[in-house]
């Protein structure tokens, strides 16, 4: 278990360079950021491109189906438990690495333009680099603890970045909320780890997997472990009921939303489940829970998304909804499909966010869609790329989203018709509100003030370049996972096959679906998407419908627009009682009971003293009387009671 052998693999250097580069970038920016000025942005971007290059190197050099453990040090140990600081390089982590460093570097590039005028420019990049570092640790670690470091680290960076504009207390609240909600999940994660330590004496993925296999299918231990892990996942990946932080997290600068709250961090949960696929496969009940939670989240968020007017909020709910979809996939044991959707989603959601950022940039900070409209004419590149992203997310072939989503729906159809129905409905809603977004923003005429109108301009190249690249990816990324009806080589599935091989052995393989059935499903999905797009077109372009002002919203719409009052409910059910409890503890228990008890003892002691003091009357006659009396009593007791 203790790997102290010096690694000689040729992958060693690039592997450790991947996290080290962003870390280096972080230190440079944190320590010398002020002096570097805008160069810090370029440095931060450069190190990420370096990391991306290293990831590519790994991708190219790792033999197919192989995996490599790179041990940096024997981090610590206690009792018989050894926790190495080691990296696991296998297709799954490489996939994530590529996504993180690739999209990450694009977003960095974009941020140079986006944050150009911000006074915290270098600070922003140091945070971003730090985030990337932790995210890389998360996906590269060969055990749960390293993963947990990354897990908490990204939470921290998310906190720092959401509250980046710290003068605004609402933003700070959002940041704090994100951190705390994540921590709730983290507790679950930690308990899960404890159980693993307890039963398997290790946190290494391979050891845990072997241990779990020994315990066998449906073992309660594994069910508990996976359930606790899933609690962690719920926090990080914004699933019901711990999703409320994600929409609020939009308070951060838009590149942050793109990077952290769309492309990378929130998918950590999916990565984690995929990483522990064997455990989850052994726990069918947990999978059911995941499926239900995922589906519910998907639907719930999609519904809320319908009524949002903040451009980023819409995207945020769409992210939650898409994440739910991914979890539904995982819950059905379709890990590759989930991962596939992670990848494609990363592209188009990052694209959408960056596009939204570009819009906001153009609008000078305005985020409310009701004040937009007709922007397509002014910012063409943004419009075009944004449209690509929207089409991709809506599941229109041959864009990336179609393939990954279709795969999941197909699995769902096989698994359970009801789930399929619900997920399809959620996709339909997605298509609707995404196009609602596009129409409200880009088509018809401008609804804002003239002042803003003059300000509207296309973003600089540092921002449009990433948009274009991401748009390209959003178009082509789907081809790595063509459905069986088109091609028999599912590149993505094959690449990850080795990771999920064990699960495939455990899980009862579903029967191969007939091609005709698949065609029907594809047809249905596309039709539904098109219908909702048409409906949106009819409503927002033809009728030029503009959502009502907040105070005019009534009835169910109001409930939906207010996100089903979930925040308020949480506030009443959890936050307020805890605050009340806090006061209660302090005032009643601490001051009144415990302290009073202490004081009461002191007081009583004092009072006894006061009472006894009265014996000392000052009258010598009384003294002698008392002496004689006590003498008599003592004599009597001594002589007659005992002898």
């Amino acid at each position: 278990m203790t790997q102290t052998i010096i690694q000689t693999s040729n992958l060693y250097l690039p592997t450790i360079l991947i996290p080290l580069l962003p870390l280096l970038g972080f230190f440079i920016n944190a320590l010398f950021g002020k002096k570097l000025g805008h160069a810090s942005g370029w440095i931060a971007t450069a190190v990420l491109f370096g990391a991306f290059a290293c990831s590519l190197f790994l991708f190219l050099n790792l033999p197919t189906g192989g995996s490599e453990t790179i041990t940096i040090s024997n981090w610590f140990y206690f009792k018989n438990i050894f926790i190495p600081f080691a990296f696991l390089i296998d297709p799954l982590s490489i996939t994530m690495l590529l996504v993180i460093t690739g999209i990450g570097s694009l977003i960095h590039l974009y941020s140079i333009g986006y944050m150009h005028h911000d006074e915290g420019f270098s600070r922003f990049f140091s945070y971003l680099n730090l985030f990337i570092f932790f995210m890389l640790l998360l996906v590269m670690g060969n055990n749960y603890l390293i993963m947990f470091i990354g897990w908490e680290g990204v939470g921290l960076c998310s906190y720092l970045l959401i509250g980046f504009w710290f003068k605004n207390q609402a933003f700070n609240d959002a940041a704090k909320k994100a951190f705390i909600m994540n921590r709730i999940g983290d507790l679950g994660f930690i308990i899960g780890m404890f159980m693993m330590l307890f039963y398997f004496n290790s946190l290494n993925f391979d050891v845990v997997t072997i241990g779990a296999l020994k315990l066998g299918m449906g073992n309660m231990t594994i069910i508990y472990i996976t359930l606790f892990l899933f609690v962690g996942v719920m926090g990080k990946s914004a699933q019901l009921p711990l999703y409320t932080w994600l929409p609020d997290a939009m308070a951060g600068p838009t590149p942050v939303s793109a990077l952290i709250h769309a492309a990378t961090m929130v998918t950590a949960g999916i990565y984690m489940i995929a990483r522990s696929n064997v455990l989850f496969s052994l726990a069918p009940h947990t999978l059911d829970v995941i499926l239900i939670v995922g589906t519910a989240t998907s639907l719930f968020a999609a519904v809320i998304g319908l009524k949002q007017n903040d451009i980023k909020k819409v995207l945020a709910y769409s992210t939650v909804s898409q994440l739910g979809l991914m979890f539904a996939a995982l819950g059905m044991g379709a890990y590759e499909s989930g991962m596939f959707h992670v990848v494609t989603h990363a592209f188009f959601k990052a694209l959408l966010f960056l596009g939204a950022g570009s819009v906001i940039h153009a609008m000078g900070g305005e985020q409310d869609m009701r004040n937009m409209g007709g922007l397509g004419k002014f910012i063409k590149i943004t419009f075009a790329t944004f449209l690509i992203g929207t089409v991709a997310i809506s599941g229109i072939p041959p864009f990336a989203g179609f393939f990954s989503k279709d795969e999941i729906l197909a699995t769902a159809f096989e698994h359970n018709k009801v789930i399929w129905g619900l997920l399809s409905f959620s996709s339909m809603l997605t298509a609707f509100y995404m196009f609602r977004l596009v129409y409200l923003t880009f088509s018809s005429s401008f609804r804002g003030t003239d002042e803003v109108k003059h300000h509207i301009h296309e973003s600089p190249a540092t921002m449009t370049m990433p948009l274009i690249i991401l748009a390209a990816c959003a178009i082509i990324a789907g081809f790595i996972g063509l459905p069986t009806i088109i091609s028999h080589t599912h590149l993505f599935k094959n690449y990850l096959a080795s990771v999920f091989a064990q699960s495939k052995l455990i899980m009862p393989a579903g029967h191969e679906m007939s091609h005709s059935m698949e065609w029907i499903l594809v047809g249905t999905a596309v039709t539904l998407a098109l219908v909702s797009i048409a409906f949106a077109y009819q409503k927002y372009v033809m009728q030029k419908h503009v959502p009502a002002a907040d105070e005019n919203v009534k009835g169910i719409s109001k409930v939906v627009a207010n996100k089903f009052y979930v925040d308020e409910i949480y506030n009443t059910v959890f936050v307020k009682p805890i605050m009340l409890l806090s006061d209660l503890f302090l005032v009643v228990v601490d001051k009144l009971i415990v302290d009073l008890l202490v004081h009461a003892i002191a007081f009583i002691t004092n009072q006894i003293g006061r009472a006894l003091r009265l014996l000392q009357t000052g009258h010598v006659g009384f003294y002698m009387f008392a002496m004689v009396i006590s003498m008599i009593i003592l004599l009597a007791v001594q002589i007659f009671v005992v002898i």
Partner: protein
Amino acid sequence: MNTLIYTACLGLFGLLAEIFNLRKYLIPIMVLGLAVIFSLNLQTWNHPETHFNGMLTDSNFSTAFSGLAIFIMLIILILAGDFYTSSDDEKHISDYMAILVFTLCGALMMFSYANMAMLFLGIETLSISLYVMAGSRRFEVKSNEAGFKYFLMGSFASAFLLFGIALIFGVTGTFSIDGIGVYMRAHADQLDPLFIVGMLLMIFAMLFKVSAAPFHFWAPDVYEGAPSLITALMSTLVKIAAFAAFYKLLSVCFVFALGKAEIILTVSCAATLLIGNLVALTQDNFKRLLAYSGISHAGYMLLAIISLQGSTDSALFLYSAGYAVASLAAFAIAITVFKATGTESISGFNGLGKKNPMLAAGLSMAMLSLAGIPPFAGFFGKYFIFSEAMRNGYQNLVFLAIISSIIGVFYYMKVIVAMYSKPANEFEVKPTFSYQLVIIVCILLSIIIGVFPGLFTKLL
């Protein structure tokens, strides 16, 4: 034996000094004389001897306690120089000095007596001198009252002592403590009831002398009313002498009969601990506070008496020494402050920490030592006594003692708090040289005993 004779001579010298008009040099000479006697006293160390047909025995016990007593008197005499400064006092200074030295004679008899007659005379010499000294501020009603209360109750208690002695004489036919001891050993399992009653009456009288509850009533009033210096003397020398005599009496004459007095001693010990500490909590007058504190200390020392089967004399001595030096330091400082502020209330100490940090530090250390906090001597005394009591199986009493120590800390701290956190009064405090000397010596001794308590544990 020689110690006693020399001391008596020194007392006589004090009287003669008046005649030869040596008033100015009186105190230095007396102090010097006591210092010489102190060193002469050491000669009897490890030379146990009996003198005057079994009236007096020199033993290490008596030598050690005599040394302590002489030291205390030395300090008191040094303090007396700057204490008796009024014209009235000046006139009587040689009388006072002589009586003080005679008090010491009484104490010395109480350490080395080997006969009930000597015990009785020792106690009476000590007491009668003190009745006088307590009432020596004869124009102050408080002092009168103190002297008279002490006198009345003291002679009342003496009568019980005598009745006890008489009964024991009746049974054993001797006044020699060894003789009584022989009788007690011979009849340990079947003691004559007369003997027991005699013993109990003597114990009552001794409990009175050591100011143990419920015979403690005289102590607070007398301590408060007596001149401060005499209070210092009473709370140190007198208490220690009484305890030493008590210890010797019980350990030689009654050790195997103590089972018949166990309830009395236990109840008295517990009551002393509690009453001393609890009532002290409510005191505002510093001297009265120290009086109650003295009562509580009597409780701790009674613990040593109760467990004397295990020969706790070393522990008792260590405790006495630690208690004495701390008390003396406290009184030296208190007298200085009383003079400066004109009040004996604790509030007189307010702001002393700012006015005179050295005095405040000294008093703090004295208080901590009295409270029994390491590394001061007071702690070790307590520790050894507790340890001995525990060894002899008095766990419950030790526990009670621990509880009462906790209570005790509170009122000692009250003084410290007053010194450091209350706003200062308008006064100037400047101890004279002799007081500074005494304070420093006593505090240093307290620490030294605290660091090397081992010197004392196997002493006796």
